């Protein structure tokens, strides 16, 4: 099981945006409140202070390229300046570059892990392309520390919560106003108490509280994108059970957010 926390994005922009669906929407933790481009493809650029992965939620992109780069820091000596007509060539500006390419059915989510965790400022340039005839959009982009835990033990509950309105009409038929239906999960993980149990309970859950983050619930043998979700803890915060000397079980309930 993996999750991205904390989010370390300091700025995010897009090369095109609908005036009513700004790129800032990508950072507001509401996947329904999307950013929209003005064509089928666009480039989102984010700057983060550190991180090991990027997750994009609720996008209609069918292909994505992510390039990570670190710009060079240059300062002029006193009295030195550009001559007229001279400009900086930034084509060789990257000191390291990683590229991730996804395509096909990705269920509206993108999960991209870096070859090595970044510990200093970097820029991620994300090129997104939707199917022909569609306008590119995405709900949330998160980039931050990648935390890895064991996968849940067998018996994951994978359910739905329905916010629809259902009422009986005068003739016994049903009036149904379909509203959002979200996913719910209940599962347990068994972690070593030193480090991982406390990293999850204290460094992550206690610090995170009820806020949503990007989760990849199963990672070891199953890597389907259906297990990539943007969730918060559902009502009850995680509960630990210290049943063994060195290992502790954590019961986790998650609720997908809108």
């Amino acid at each position, binding site marked *: 099981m993996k999750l991205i926390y904390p989010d370390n994005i300091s700025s995010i922009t897009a090369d095109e945006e609908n005036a009513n*669906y700004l790129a800032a929407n990508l950072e507001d933790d509401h996947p329904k*409140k999307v950013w929209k481009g003005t064509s089928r493809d666009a480039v989102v650029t984010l700057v983060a202070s550190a991180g090991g992965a990027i997750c994009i939620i609720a996008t209609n992109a069918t292909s994505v390229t992510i390039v990570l780069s670190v710009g060079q820091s240059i300062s002029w000596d006193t009295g030195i300046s550009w001559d007229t007509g001279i400009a900086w060539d930034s084509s060789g500006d990257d000191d390291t570059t990683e590229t991730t390419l996804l395509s096909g059915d990705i269920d509206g989510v993108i999960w991209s892990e870096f070859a090595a965790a970044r510990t200093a400022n970097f820029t991620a340039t994300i090129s997104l392309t939707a199917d022909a005839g569609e306008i590119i959009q995405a709900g949330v982009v998160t980039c931050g520390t990648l935390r890895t835990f064991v996968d849940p033990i067998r018996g994951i509950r994978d359910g739905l919560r329905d916010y629809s309105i259902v009422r009986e009409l005068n003739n016994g*038929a049903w009036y149904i106003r379909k509203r959002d239906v979200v996913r719910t999960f209940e599962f347990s993980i068994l972690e070593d108490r030193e480090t991982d149990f406390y990293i999850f309970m204290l460094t992550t859950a206690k610090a995170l509280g009820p806020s949503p983050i990007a989760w990849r619930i199963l990672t070891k043998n199953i890597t389907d994108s259906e297990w990539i979700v943007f969730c918060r803890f559902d009502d009850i915060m995680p509960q630990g059970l210290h049943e063994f000397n060195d290992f502790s079980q954590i019961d986790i309930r998650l609720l997908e957010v809108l």
Partner: protein
Amino acid sequence: MLLVEATINGTTYYTSMEGHALAHYWDSHIISFDPPQYQLSEFYGGYVRPGFGAVSFSHDLFASEWPPPINIVISIYYTATDEASKEFLFAGVAHLTSISRESIEYEFYSPSYTTTVADLTAFDDTLVNVVTWFCNAARLNLILDSTYSRVVSPDVKFTVSGDQIAINLLSEICAFFTHLFYISDGTLYLIDMLLDAGSATITEFDYFPSEYLYEVPVAIARTANYARTSSYPYGQEVSLATEFIDTEAKITAALDNIIAVMNLAKCNLKMPFIGSIPTPGKKLSWTDTSLGQDTDAYIRARTISYDFENEEVVVEGEGVLTAS
């Protein structure tokens, strides 16, 4: 879909109860919303006055406007499809009542009309022309729509005694002549209580189990000088303080209309938000097969309550029930 525009310090925020991605993103900042309603002043007519309760917003709405302002301007719309098709329902001012950890609560007030009519102002004209006088820019400053007023507009003749609040006086005059009026988006709609201001036939797929109510009947309706009785002598008495016309025949005709309207059956028709929302005066007809026998019914909408949280419109009005 409930859509609420909230203007805070000159900036328009687009809010809703569940978040809707339309032309704008109507963010889910509304936590709760007491059902606003159009409330008829008297059973027999007058001003269909908008009534509001409280609206609770999430703290997120005020992220850039903290602390929450004392009042904000609000416009309420409803749409079943897209933003371009939204219907205007109400506008008003929300005044801050509480700030808590969970929400920011405002009390919603409708626009107030403070214009007065001076003592000894004399009226001697038809009802439509009198209402036109009230709607003048120097008074209520509204556009009059009299499409559904009485075909032969009743005569009005009286002199104002003491200064009067114009909107209240107009309400009394219209009620006397069994007319109602409501104000929406700068227009005053004058409607004859005895006519249909539009009509629609609904099926049992279009309403929830509803109630049919019969008020205490009117036994006698009287003014200072005249009285008319009904066929229910055990009922209540209705007294009207002012005679807004000066002949016996016209006063008794007005009293007969009042008795006729008040002694009709009432129904609280509960409907889902489907299609166009009914407005005051609209006739709704249906067949109810859930009673002892199949029953044809109709009402004319008078008081309309919009319960956005439960997706329900409650339409109250008087009408007639007959066997199918």
